[in-house]
């Protein structure tokens, strides 16, 4: 067994809930690509500057496929969610295998389509806002708004029958509960997986192609029929990636606006609201420990040699605060044209649901403050409970009064 590594760990201790750990500021200045060690002893490269993060995420020699690799792990962290092995999906495929699957999915989720979804998202949002009003002051926006709205939307997009949506949402909710025991979370994941498996089977028998799963199951991918297990994997990916992430961004959006109340009015205007949401997204790269890739070949970058087989972590949160790109990196600044943030990643794996996510965050925040103009969190936004120890950052709860 090798000696314990003397390398620093991935910075994980925030000193303020709105900002990445301060070590990143120093790393960007002194060592944009540096060595670090995961708690389980696996070493890797940590990339912290905007330009280097983008360059490496666009490099085809960095693989997203961790299927046959002993993965690095944060397992020394307590409360880490257990994992049920899921079938392969976009996030385990490199080009050229990735390319036709990616196209089959992103064609369903274009910016134009996301705009067309706006009225329906607003309608669903208002339904849940009525429930918030019924619950009354002290209602938790995470449980009653931020989680169920994206879940309902993705149900409708995938084509989950209305009668099953409640079950579907319940399981999805269990998966994002923090205190839930591992067996309960695993059971929920399995229940969703089995449910989607059956749904895909049903959709294969039907000629109905009015929803995404109906079309995907009948699609030909690179000339071949789409295999059942991969369609189920893609459905799970769309569900999981499209649910918790958006929910957390909505919560962080509310918290951020508490400190920037003068910007709430911007939400009423589509262009201004869009710019505001971009800044909220830039401030909060919720995949808080970055994204992991593995070098499939030797890579030279800025005089650094990344050897074939080595792990690379690209810190999206740090790249979004790069002083060389942003005049006002640590505060919401809608006043000037900004470099595009990397919260959705970069390269061919950039978030397939980014347009839907943008629309959901903007519409939910807009409708929320239109319904409750005086809305405020029950405690100072800095004192809410944040998901410091979770892969996907955000708020555990967001109790509000109005």
């Amino acid at each position, binding site marked *: 067994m090798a000696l314990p590594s003397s390398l620093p760990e991935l910075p994980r201790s925030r000193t303020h809930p709105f900002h990445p750990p301060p070590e990143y500021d120093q790393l960007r200045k002194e060592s944009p690509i540096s060595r670090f060690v995961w708690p389980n002893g696996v070493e890797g490269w940590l990339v912290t500057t905007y330009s280097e993060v983008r360059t490496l995420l666009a490099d085809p020699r960095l693989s997203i496929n961790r299927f046959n690799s002993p993965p690095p792990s944060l397992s020394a962290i307590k409360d880490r969610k257990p994992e049920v092995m899921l079938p392969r999906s976009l996030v385990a495929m490199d080009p050229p295998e990735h390319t036709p699957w990616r*196209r089959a999915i992103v064609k369903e989720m274009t910016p134009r389509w996301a705009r067309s979804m706006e009225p329906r998202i607003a309608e669903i949002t208002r339904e849940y806002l009525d429930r918030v009003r019924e619950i009354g002051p002290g209602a938790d926006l995470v449980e009653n708004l931020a989680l169920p709205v994206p879940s309902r939307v993705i149900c409708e997009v995938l084509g989950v029958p209305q009668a099953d949506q409640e079950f579907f949402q319940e399981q999805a909710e269990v998966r994002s509960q923090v205190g839930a025991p591992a067996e309960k979370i695993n059971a929920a994941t399995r229940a969703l997986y089995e449910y989607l498996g059956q749904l895909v089977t049903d959709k294969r028998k039907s000629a109905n192609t009015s929803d995404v799963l109906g079309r995907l199951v009948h699609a030909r991918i690179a000339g071949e029929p789409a295999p059942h297990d991969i369609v189920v994997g893609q459905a799970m990916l769309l569900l999981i990636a499209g649910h918790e992430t958006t929910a957390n961004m909505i919560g962080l959006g509310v918290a951020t606006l508490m400190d920037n109340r003068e910007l709430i009015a911007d939400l009423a205007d589509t262009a201004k609201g869009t710019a505001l949401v971009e800044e909220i997204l830039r401030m909060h790269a919720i995949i808080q420990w970055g994204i992991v890739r593995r070098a499939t070949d030797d890579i030279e970058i800025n005089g650094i040699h990344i050897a074939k087989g080595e792990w690379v972590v690209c810190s999206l949160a740090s790249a979004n605060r790069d002083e060389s790109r942003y005049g006002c990196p640590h505060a919401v600044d809608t006043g000037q044209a900004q470099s*595009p943030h990397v919260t959705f990643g970069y390269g061919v794996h950039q978030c397939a649901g980014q347009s839907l996510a943008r629309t959901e965050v903007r519409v939910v925040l807009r409708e929320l403050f239109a319904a409750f103009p005086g809305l405020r969190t029950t405690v100072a936004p800095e004192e809410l409970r944040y998901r410091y120890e979770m892969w996907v950052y955000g708020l555990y709860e967001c109790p509000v009064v109005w």
Partner: protein
Amino acid sequence: MPKVIVDRDRCCGAGLCAQALPQVFDQGEDAVVVLLEENPPAELVAPLADVAFACPSGAIRVVEQ
């Protein structure tokens, strides 16, 4: 005048170009970029540079001619 070159093989279908400059770019049935205007007017040089920079797959190049 700027000349736009798109690489449809590289395109990953994010559609950011068609959203930002619908008079120049569109997305086809398969989400892949469709170039509507190869020689856009000179006043689009700056927004074209932004779009080329934002493209996640590096599928857009703008050259001066």
